[in-house]
Structures are given as C-alpha cells and as structure tokens.
C-alpha cells in the first residue's frame, strides 16, 4: 500500500539490526525507519521477532573462560612440541610413509576386486558345460587325432626318425 519494495526492506533490515544493538532497543532515533515500520507490516513483524530474539540473548550468561598465564604457557609448549615434531629427521620420511601405506591399501583393494572379478566373470575359469546330448563313443573319439601307429619294420623306424629331424 505504501509501495515498499524488496530493496527498501533489505536496507531497512540493516538499520533495524543497528537498533537492536542499543540498550534499550529504540527506533525513535531513526525517524525514517520508524515511518517505514508504520507502513510496512512485514518489516514491523520482523522487527518484533528480532526484538524477542534480542531479549533471549540479553539474559544469557557470557562464557566463563578466564584468560590466564598458564594458558599462554601451555600454548607455547605445544608450539615447541609441534615444531620439534616437524623438524625431527623422521618427519622427512613421514609423507612417504603415508603415501606408501595408502598405495599398499589401494593395491590390496584393487587386487581383491580383480580376483573377485576373475573368479566370478572370467569365461576361461568357468567350468565346462556338462554334455547333455547323447553321443556314441565313436563320435567322441572321432573328434580326437589318432595316435601315430607303431613302426612295424626297421625301415619305418628310420623313416620316423627322419620325419622328426625334418620337423614333421
């Protein structure tokens, strides 16, 4: 009704946040904001909510942590310790150790995965299918080459030796 657009409200939100920092919370010092709140119901509602949240925070205890010299001493001691760890000779090899252990782990995982894959899916390692068709002994034996016949005479023996020498 007053023609406030999103950008106006955005800018007023920042100004409302400024008001919440004051104790007590007051918008009077910012007459422009007060006028906006009178006209913009959405912002008025948001400001009321923000006021409530400010009240919630107001009664809260501040963290009870006291600064102390002992704390400073502890910090400096742990810095010395961290530096000593970093400059120790073993520290030079530490990244390599970490790398090696990671590599070993990855290799183990890959090997495991590979062996599972080969075991499950490799066709070479599959059991041959059982022959279900009815085949005669003669048919099966015809698939295999006959063994060479035994030489009967001395000449045949000599001939077979020559064949072997010629690579036949």
């Amino acid at each position, binding site marked *: 009704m007053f023609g406030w657009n999103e950008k106006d409200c955005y800018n007023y939100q920042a100004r409302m946040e400024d008001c919440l920092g004051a104790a007590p919370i007051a918008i009077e010092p910012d007459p422009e904001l007060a006028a906006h709140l009178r006209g913009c119901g959405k912002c008025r509602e948001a400001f009321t909510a923000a006021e409530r949240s400010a009240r919630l925070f107001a009664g809260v205890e*501040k963290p009870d942590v006291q600064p102390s010299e002992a*704390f400073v001493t502890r910090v*400096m001691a742990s810095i010395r310790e961290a530096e000593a760890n970093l400059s120790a000779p073993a520290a030079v090899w530490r990244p390599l150790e970490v790398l090696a252990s990671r590599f070993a782990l990855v290799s183990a995982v890959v090997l495991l995965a590979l062996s599972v894959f080969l075991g499950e899916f490799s066709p070479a390692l599959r059991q041959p299918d059982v022959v279900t068709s009815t085949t005669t002994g003669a048919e099966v034996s015809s698939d295999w080459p006959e063994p060479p016949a035994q030489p009967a005479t001395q000449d045949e023996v000599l001939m077979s030796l020559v064949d072997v020498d010629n690579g036949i």
Partner: protein
Amino acid sequence: MRSVPKVEGKQPLAGSRTEARAAEADYERRLVREAQNGNAAAYEELVRIHQPRLLAVVGGILRRNQDVEDVAQQVLVKAYLSLKRFDLRSAFGTWLYKIAVNECWDYFRKKKVRRMVYEADLSEEQLRQMEVVPAHTGGASRSREDAAARAQQRQLLDRLLDELDETDRSMLVMKEVSGFTVEEISEVFGLNVNTVKVRMFRARGRLVEAYERRLKTRPGSPRNS
C-alpha cells in the same frame, strides 16, 4: 624454535582513541613480523593480546569450558605454524578469529556433536519465563535461582541456534555473546557490513520462529490442542 630476545617497544601509550588504535595496530604488525622471523617471544605476546577475545569467540560457539581451551590452543598452534603465509593484509586478530571459527566448525563435524543440551523437559511456563529474564543485569548479586534460569535460557538458546546455519549462528554468537562489533564480524567472514547486518537480522527471525515452533509442539500447550 629460535630463542630471540623480546620485541623492542612495549604496548603503545594511548593518546587520542584513533591514535591509540593506530599505534596498537602498528605494534601488532611489528609483533607479527618478528614472529614470522621465528621470534617466539613476539608470538607469545600476540597470544597474550588475543587470548581473551579468542576464548570469547571459541567459548561463545562451543560452550564447553574444557574443550574451549583445547580448541583455542589448537587455533593458536595452527596459526603459528601457518604464520609465514599470513600476508598482513588484514589484522592479525581478524585472521586468527577466522581460523578459530573454522576450527570450531571442524570440532563439531569431527565429534559429530550437536550441542548436547536438552530443554525438552522444560514446561511452557519455564520457556516463557526465559524470555522475560531481565536484560543487562550483570553483577555479583544474582540469586541462585536467577543463575539457574540463565543456565536454562542458555540451553534453550543453544538448541534454537542449532537450527541456524553455521555462519549465521557464529555471527549471532560473536555479536551477542562474545561482544564483537558488526565491522569485526564482517572482516572475519569476509562479508560486507550491510550483508552481515541483514543476515543477522533474518537469522533472529528464524530463531524466533524455531522458538515459536517449540512452544506450539510442547505437550500440554494450549496452542497444541
């Protein structure tokens, strides 16, 4: 760690407020440079300067006294070890508090803790009383009941803050609990001052929405029926 004599020139004397601030900033820059060159005493001085606010930031976000010091210590060690990479473009404090906020978030992630507070047993009346605990009444004369009410209020607030995202939560805590200015918060988070104000303002709205939801879902609440 190299043993180097203490930094020359002690804390600057205050003239006008702006001058004093400029002198402090200059003194701090000198300390940082000395520390970057391996002067542990200079870093120790920086720790002393920033200890109260660092503890306030970490304490504001973690709220567990035992862990607060451990996390703050870790922040300071981390900062020391990466001090050489700090280019002095921002104030040392801003850089340090940024590390602190990130460390707190890491702490929550690593421990997978959502702050373990339970206000579920509180009655609606108790919840309502929390809202009317008088503001800015610090002092030694608080009664035990008052302290208990504040502890409960803190628990409720912790729970409500859990419903905000990490950045909004940290911003609100830094402002309302740790006492940071909006300008300081904007530096820590690398955001425009106006953006910080608007984000905080909207986060407050969400906080109250969460509070309202709790009131409505409370057993025995008239609004629940």
